[in-house]
Every structure is written in structure tokens, then in C-alpha cells.
């Protein structure tokens, strides 16, 4: 069928082309059907760097803001670890502050760091460049998206300074306890958290619509969906998930805000507090959990899918081999995305919902293992007999594969109802989700930063510091989270402020101290990484063009770093997928996407 279509296309287009000069039939690509995009050219410092409409600058703004707020999340985790490891030495963290740290650490890391960094940061920077567009389709809306995100972050941070402090309800914010007296931050903190999340959703929607439409409607000539780098597929699918999952969070936030401020009973049952009955009745706390996890589970994949995509590109480029099973990879991303909407209640096995639900949701959950396993096999098969360069992006990619398999396998345990029930709310769960959606995506983020830093700044990051960063982060992550699995097995509950000499801890006391020390070391290594970024941005070794010899369009702009409008006068025309590495039959080692077939007549062209 492909054969037939191609022939048809070539014939019709050959008739259409009236430019006069001879074009070999194989090089024929349909004429542009998208009008040339008109861009807003900034003239002043403010419109160029601050209120900027260039997706690349917006991407960097997103990334810097997310990193800044992520640092707060990191520091909060140090406080928690000191308390857990050495409760008698470091007693500055009271129980209330501990819960507030847990909550803010979780919410910051999941939503404000990972989501914003992957979609807002990498999405903005890479989408227009990789699909061959001059910018996002609506740069103005894109700019507003970032400023909404910044306001959301500021509202979140401001909750540290209000009476009662930020909310301490746990990142899941379950009512009724989240808004009842006794929970830290039940006065102002929870309201600010809910408002901040709502603003985040609104801001993200503006950006997300841009990402989706840029990918669907603004690709360059020759760029079919099946010629897009997997990075774009991952970001695209994750954005679609976000656009469909965030509404549930938004609705839950509105309803809980009303419960808190107006005294409605959406989630509040008849309930007594301090010996007095609250005026609420008939609400359903389970409803909140359903809404929250209808957002919360796709959220896991909103973070994971861009990581899947980016790591596929990193592995392919740094192993000098085409990605194994490209189409399978694309379909796996799409299927994982679709399935992620029908598994949410596996977070609620112990919530008291109808027990038959557990059966259904365990089944759908375990089905996700199939496309996920396909992806892991394909990564490994891409490496198989590849020309593996142990560059830092490759190291992080390998770290990702191992970590992801680890975290994924514990997911199979937790997805089963009977195994989940005894492990529920123990450190096993903490270890699982940190491995699978904390460390694994972070490995990809680090790898991606080392990979694309030359493109963004024109300079390389320091390689020695990078290797130190990788090895300490990678080994350290295992030092932190492997013991936590064991703590979970012996029944140590999560979210407990102090269990130094509780009966659970008889065999685990030393472990907690070990974890704390490891966490501090890993944490400080990230400071080293930040130093590397700042230092290298100004004094790093200058990078030549396309230092990794990659094929995708972002490396083939006339200027590096790319300028406003990305591609100079003419948009590139794409003839092939971005994975033509080590193609047999020719003398060059890689063929960029915009190289016409007539330039490499002896190369076997991959059909995509």
C-alpha cells in the first residue's frame, strides 16, 4: 500500500511542480500548504528576553523556573531525611513542618518541576525546531502560558509565608482531612495550593494547545507524523494526556476550594471535630479520590512519556544506530497513553471503594506492562551491536533503562490487589514511585540537558563534572531507594514523622541513617550540576555545530544556537526519518533528515 501511495504522490507532484529546474522524482515533496508564519519581532530588551514570544526563550524560562522551584523541593527533602535518620540530633522539624515538607516536596516535584520541565521546557524548545516550524502556532498565547505558570509558582511559594503555613495534607490532598482543623495549613495553605494548581492547569492548557497544534498542523514539508523524532511523539502524547487529565484536577480543586471557603459538602460527610459536629453532610470523600486519580495516574505518564521519547533519541544518536522498531515505539507510546486513563483506581485499593473495581483496575494496570516492556526491549535491541559511545547522555540513558525496569517491576507487585493491600502506605510504595517516576525521568532530564546544552548555549558542559554527577546520582539513587523497598517489606509506614524506636524499626534503624546520608550526598551533587550549567554557559568549551552528529532538524539550523524564526530564509524539507545512522551502502556515517535521496543514491532508504 505504501508503495502505491508513494508512486501516486510522486506522479501528481511531478505534474504540479512548475519551478522549471529539474527535480529528481525521488526528491519530490508536496508544495507547502501552510502560509509562511508571521512572527512578532521583538525590538526592546523587555519583549526580547522577558515578555518574549519566542518558544525557545519561553522554554528556557520554563526550565529555569521549574528548576528553581525544584530546588525548594530538594531542600525540603533534606529536612525530611534529617528528621527520619537522626530525629534526636535534628529536631528543628516539628511534626507539622514535617507534613508540610512532605506535601510540598511531592506536589512541587510532580507538577511544578517534572511536568513543567518536560512539557514547558523541552516541549517549547524542541517542538518547533524538531518539526521544522518557525515558532509555536500562537506565540502570544504561549507567552501567557509561561506567565500563568510563574504566577502559579509564586502563589504556591507564598503559602510558605501565610499564617498556618503551607498545607500538610500529603500531595494527594485527600479531604476531609486536608481542610479540617488539625491538619497543618488547613487555614490558608490549602486554599493557596488549590488556587495555584488551578492557575497551573489554565496556564498549561494555553501552552498545551500550542504544542498539540504545532505538531499536528505546522510541520515542515515532508515531515509526516511517522518521520517525527520519538521525542516529539512522547511530548505530543503526554500533552494530549495532560489536556484531558488536568480537567479532573481542576474540577476537584474548585470543589474543594468551595468546601473550604463556602462550607459546601461536595467531599465532606457528616463529621465531628473537637467534639463538635461540622455543618456538613452527605458528601463523598471517595469522589475526590476518583477525580484526583483520574488526573493523577495519567500524570505519571505525562512525566514518563516525554522521558520515553527523549531517551529513545539519546540512545539512537549515541549508539549510532537506528531506533529498533520505530513504529512499535510510536504505537506503544500511544497505547500507554490511552490505557493510562482506565487504571486510576489502582491507587485506591484500600479506599473502601467497591471491591470488584479492584479486579478490573488490576487487569488494566497489568496490561500496561505489555507496551512498556516492548519499549524496554526495543531500547535494549537498539543498543545491541550498536556503536555505543559512553558519552554522558548515553550514561544517563543506560541509567534510565535500569532504573525504569526496577521501578516498573515493583509496579507489577503494587498493581495486584492482594499484594498491594499489605504494602499500601509503606515505604515500598515510596521506593516504587520514586524509582519509576522520580529517578527514571530525572535521569532522562539530565541526559537531555547534557545532550542539548550545546544547542541552547553553543557550549559544552564540563565532562568531568558530568561524569561525577552521573555516577554519584546513579549509585546514590540506588543507595537511597533500595533500602526503602526493604523498609516497606518489614512494614514501615510512610508519612510517619518519627519512628526511631518504634517496633517497626528494630531491624531498620541503621538503614534510615544510611538513606539520609546517601540522600544528602546525592542532593549536593545536584548543586555541582547547577554549578556546571552556570559556569559552562559562560566559560564552557565552545561546541562545533551538531557535536553529536545527530540527524534531527534542531541541529541543522543555519545558526547555533538557533535564532528567532529558527531556520533562516527557507524552511528545511524533510526526506527521511531522523534515525539514518550507519546506513549500509554509503560512505557517510549519518544522513540528516533534510538530505535528499538524490544526494545519497546508493543508500537504502528506510520507509517510514
Amino acid at each position, binding site marked *: 500500500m505504501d508503495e502505491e501511495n508513494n508512486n501516486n504522490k510522486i506522479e501528481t507532484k511531478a505534474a504540479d511542480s512548475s519551478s522549471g529546474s529539474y527535480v529528481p522524482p525521488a526528491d519530490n515533496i508536496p508544495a507547502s500548504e501552510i502560509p509562511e508564519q508571521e512572527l512578532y519581532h521583538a525590538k526592546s530588551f523587555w519583549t526580547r528576553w522577558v515578555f518574549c514570544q519566542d518558544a525557545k526563550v519561553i522554554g528556557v524560562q520554563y526550565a529555569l523556573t521549574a528548576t528553581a522551584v525544584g530546588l525548594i523541593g530538594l531542600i525540603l527533602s533534606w529536612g525530611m531525611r534529617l528528621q527520619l535518620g537522626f530525629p534526636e540530633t535534628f529536631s528543628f522539624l516539628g511534626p507539622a513542618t514535617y507534613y508540610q515538607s512532605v506535601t510540598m516536596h511531592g506536589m512541587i516535584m510532580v507538577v511544578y518541576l517534572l511536568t513543567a520541565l518536560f512539557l514547558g521546557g523541552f516541549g517549547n524548545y524542541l517542538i518547533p525546531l524538531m518539526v521544522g516550524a518557525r515558532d509555536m502556532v500562537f506565540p502570544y498565547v504561549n507567552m501567557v502560558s509561561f506567565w500563568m505558570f510563574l504566577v502559579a509558582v509564586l502563589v504556591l511559594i507564598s503559602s510558605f509565608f501565610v499564617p498556618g503555613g503551607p498545607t500538610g495534607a500529603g500531595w494527594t490532598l485527600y479531604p476531609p482531612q486536608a481542610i479540617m482543623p488539625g491538619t497543618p495549613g488547613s487555614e490558608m495553605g490549602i486554599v493557596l495550593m488549590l488556587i495555584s494548581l488551578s492557575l497551573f492547569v489554565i496556564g498549561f492548557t494555553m501552552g498545551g494547545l500550542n504544542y*498539540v497544534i504545532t505538531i499536528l*498542523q505546522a510541520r515542515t*514539508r515532508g515531515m509526516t507524523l511517522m518521520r517525527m523524532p520519538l521525542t516529539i511523539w512522547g511530548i505530543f502524547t503526554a500533552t494530549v494526556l495532560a489536556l484531558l487529565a488536568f480537567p479532573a484536577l481542576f474540577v476537584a480543586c474548585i470543589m474543594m476550594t*468551595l468546601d473550604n471557603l463556602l462550607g*459546601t459538602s*461536595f467531599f465532606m460527610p457528616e463529621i465531628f471535630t473537637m467534639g463538635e459536629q461540622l455543618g456538613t453532610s452527605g458528601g463523598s470523600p471517595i469522589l475526590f479520590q476518583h477525580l484526583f486519580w483520574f488526573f493523577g495516574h495519567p500524570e505519571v505518564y505525562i512525566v514518563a512519556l516525554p522521558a520515553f521519547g527523549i531517551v529513545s533519541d539519546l540512545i539512537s544518536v549515541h549508539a549510532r544506530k537506528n531506533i529498533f522498531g520505530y513504529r512499535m515505539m510510536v504505537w506503544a507510546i500511544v497505547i500507554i497513553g490511552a490505557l493510562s486513563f482506565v487504571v486510576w483506581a489502582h491507587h485506591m485499593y484500600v479506599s473502601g471503594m467497591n471491591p470488584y473495581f479492584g479486579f478490573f483496575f488490576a487487569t488494566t494496570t497489568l496490561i500496561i506492562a505489555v507496551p512498556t516492556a516492548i519499549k524496554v526491549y526495543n531500547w535494549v535491541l537498539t543498543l545491541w551491536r550498536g556503536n555505543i559511545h559512553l558519552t554522558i547522555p548515553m550514561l544517563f540513558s543506560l541509567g534510565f533503562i535500569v532504573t525504569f525496569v526496577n521501578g516498573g517491576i515493583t509496579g507489577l507487585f503494587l498493581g495486584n490487589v492482594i499484594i498491594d493491600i499489605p504494602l499500601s502506605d509503606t515505604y515500598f510504595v515510596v521506593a516504587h514511585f520514586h524509582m519509576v517516576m522520580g529517578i527514571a525521568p530525572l535521569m532522562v532530564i539530565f541526559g537531555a540537558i547534557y545532550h542539548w546544552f550545546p544547542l541552547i548555549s553553543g557550549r559544552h558542559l564540563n565532562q568531568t563534572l558530568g561524569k561525577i554527577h552521573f555516577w554519584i546520582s546513579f549509585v546514590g539513587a540506588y543507595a537511597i531507594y533500595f533500602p526503602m523497598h526493604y523498609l516497606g517489606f518489614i512494614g514501615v509506614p510512610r508519612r510517619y514523622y518519627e519512628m526511631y524506636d518504634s517496633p517497626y524499626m528494630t531491624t531498620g534503624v541503621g538503614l534510615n541513617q544510611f538513606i539520609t546520608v546517601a540522600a544528602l550526598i546525592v542532593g549536593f551533587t545536584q548543586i555541582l550540576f547547577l554549578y556546571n550549567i552556570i559556569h559552562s554557559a559562560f566559560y564552557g568549551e565552545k561546541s562545533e555545530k551538531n557535536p553529536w552528529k545527530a540527524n534531527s532538524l534542531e541541529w541543522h539550523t543555519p545558526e547555533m544556537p538557533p535564532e528567532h524564526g529558527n531556520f533562516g530564509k527557507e524552511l528545511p524539507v524533510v526526506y527521511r526519518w531522523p534515525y539514518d545512522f550507519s546506513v549500509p551502502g554509503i560512505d557517510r556515517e549519518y544522513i540528516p533528515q533534510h538530505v535528499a535521496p538524490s544526494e545519497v543514491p546508493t543508500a537504502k532508504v528506510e520507509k517510514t
Partner: protein
Amino acid sequence: MSEIDTSKLPQGGKGFVHDFAADQTTFKGVPWGKAMMWIFLLSDTFIFSCFLISLMTARASTTVEWPYPSEVFGLTMFGVEVPLLLIAIMTFVLITSSGTMALAVKYGYEKNRKMCAWLILATAIGGLTFVGMQAFEWSKLIFHDGVRPWGNPFGAEQFGAFFFMITGFHGTHVSIGVIFLFIFARKTFRGDFDTGRRGYFTSMKSDYKAIEILGLYWHFVDLVWVFIFAFFYLW
């Protein structure tokens, strides 16, 4: 650049495959803004679905009887109890405004500037009337019947909470639409879509396609109202 002739593309299932296998655009001949509005509306559908599903859950699970809508939303006209009278008028006005919007889009594409502008203005006034009647309904429920978000004399307290939240959220959508309709009416009267005058905020040119995009939003808001009407007033 050559504008794509969508009539020459393959149709049906083959066309679907062709469009998704094609380069540049997936939705052939669809302007960026229009595609964006559709995706936004899909996302917004999920918001309203979450609201309405929550409402259904609450109705199915409250321990106290749910109020009988025909009584709560009845109006007494000339001594006769007419159930759902105001809602019927509101619905009629809103659906009619959808009709005028559709006509405005038609005249917009025919470059009939005056007619288009008047019809947008009519749509805006229809929307404003709807919001006004909703304000009347709210004030009647609040001041006359004593319905509050945290309780009401008719039955389950979730009734008031969901009513104010969902109709309020929908009313906000209508109000935003009305604001944009007035802006667009002014822009059309001034001829912005003919002269390509640049937008105040975005400094980008715009044409009559923008009216169709606004129309999509307006029809969506009306469609959502039909569901709210069914779930709140008829159920």
C-alpha cells in the same frame, strides 16, 4: 505556498489514512486557530463532564432526598404555577443566539460585513439576556427561596452547591463569550477583518475565519447548556 484543495483529497476511510500519513498538516485545510479551538473544547468537555459526573454521584449517594426540580424552578405567573418557565425561556434565547451566530459566520464568509456585524451583536445581546435571566434566577433562589451553597429548605444540601457551581461555571463561559462577541462586533463594524488591522495584544492580522472560531466556542457553550438543562432541570 499553495492553498490545499481539500475536494481533491481521498474521502472516507482512505482519506483518514491519507491525512494521518501526510506531511505538514493532519487536518487538511483547517486553520491553526480552528484546530486549536476544537482541541480546547475537547478539554473543556472533560471539565464539564467531571462536573456532571460528580453531580450524578452526589445524587445517587446522598442520604437526604434530592429536591424536586419542577417545584424549585417553577414560577407563578398570573396565579398559575408554571414549572420550568424561566428555564424554558433562557434555553430558547440561548439556542436562538446559536442560530444568529451561525448566520453571522455565513455572512462573514460572504464578506457581508454589515450583516455579519449586526448578527454578532444580536448574538451578544442574546447571551447577555441569558446571563441576566440567570442572575434573576440566582437571586430568586437565594433571596426568595433561601437556597444556599451549604444548604436549602428543599432537601439534600448538595443541590444548592452543585447548582451554583455548575450554572456559575457555565455562566462564566457565557459571560466570556459575550465579552468576545462585543469585541468582535466592534472589530467587524470597523472592518478589521477586511483591512487586516492588527490586534491590540497580539499585533497579528486576523480575518473572517476568526468569527467561525468564536462561533465554535459559542455553539459549544450552548450545547453544554443542553446537558446542564437535562441533568439539572429535567432529571
